């Protein structure tokens, strides 16, 4: 899905394509963000991406994790093109309490994972979609 994020006070549009790709190394879903802009303002660093995406309330938490925060530059595992990804290192630990009690199927796992990981980088699951996937509405 490509979600347009308009820059404030600007005619430029930043388009971010989110991909969820299973990592064979971490055996977890990993969120990738590929950015394109309509004007001559390439996303050249995680800092530029933060300004466009991360809600001010979440910035300190994201910055605290690692050298450049929870988002780093990398190459897309399928296209091979430059993009950003959200570090999966702490995902397993963070997901454990969310899946306690068992019975978490693949769809629900991804939904909870999205809630944990996506919210910090502008990817919010619409409530209607969440309800639809969860069936009973219990996610």
């Amino acid at each position, binding site marked *: 899905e490509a979600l347009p994020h308009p820059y404030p006070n600007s005619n430029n549009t930043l388009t971010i394509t989110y991909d969820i790709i299973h990592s*064979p*190394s*971490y*055996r977890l879903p990993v969120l990738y963000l590929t950015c394109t802009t309509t004007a001559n303002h*390439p996303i*050249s*660093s995680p800092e530029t991406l933060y300004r466009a995406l991360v809600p001010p309330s979440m910035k300190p938490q994201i910055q605290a994790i*690692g*050298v*450049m925060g929870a988002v*780093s*530059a*990398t*190459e897309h*595992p*399928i*296209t*091979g*093109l*430059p993009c950003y990804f959200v*570090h999966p*290192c702490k995902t397993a630990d963070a997901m454990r309490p969310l899946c306690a009690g068992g019975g978490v199927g693949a769809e629900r796992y991804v939904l909870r994972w999205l809630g944990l990981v996506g919210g910090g980088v502008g990817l919010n699951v619409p409530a209607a979609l969440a309800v639809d996937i969860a069936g009973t509405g219990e996610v």
Partner: protein
Amino acid sequence: MAGERIAHLQSKIWSGSLPLEIRLAASDCRTYDESDPYLVQYPRLSYLAFLLPRLHTFFAPWLINPEVPSYEAWLSFEDVPLKWHYPTGLLYDLYSGAEPINFDGRQEREAVVLSHSTVATMGGAVSTPWRLTLHYTEFPSGQLIPLDADDKTMRDTFTNAMKEADFVRNGTARTAMSLSKEDSDKLWQAVRSHDRALFNEINTKLLYPPGLGLRHVPLKVYLPTSASQTTSETIPEEGKTTGHLRVVQALVPLQTSTRQPQTLGTALNSTLPTIFPSRRNPLLAQPVLHGAAVPMTANLWELNRAAAYTDGFLHLAVVMLG
């Protein structure tokens, strides 16, 4: 004894280097194509980005626009932009077109021990310089990760790869993530200055964390797109770029399902069975590492300890035969 043997092999890999002949792009050069070439014997294990400040100083007299910062430059080989986060030796194995050196002699029958003769061909001297072009304009931001003045991006991508290798080895990245700032700085300094002793001082802590067992061998396999089109696992690519590759990764355990030591051949056969249908013989393709076609019978973990790149991974180029 085994430790000494591996250390000797690792030393050989670390001293492997490539002759580079770097020319300034005519469009960035005041005298068109008449600048001197920059010649350097560069370690296979190192990253090209570390050359940029020196290149900027060397080419400054010829630059049309000397104000462009050194980190905005980029390198290409035959119009293919060279990725910063790939080590120089991997780029050479993938793109130079040089014939891999073939291992001469009998294949080992036992895969338990990596022999000196197996590794002897790796990292061998290259006589023909690899001719690269340096650019200061038209940075291909759709194809290359942009760099920065303080090497933050290079350090970050290296660190991420190193953590991933750690996770692959032990099932957790906590060893890599709990390196002290001092150790983490030393490791990066060792990579930047190609200092094997300093590197091993820290890397030993990563390889042998107390209380954690080794599970998988960090391995990445790079396929030319013509190879990936022959497999059923291909995802159709949109807007293929020249020089595009398919990177394959799978978790490769230390031992096979029949509790035999994992070899390069057993790993490739289980990961890419259509390209490597035999566990012992390269029928359709050869695995190339540090310029040499590695025997399929090589013990994979020992190969990793001797010949991994600084991020902990074996980065293998696949060359199709025939």
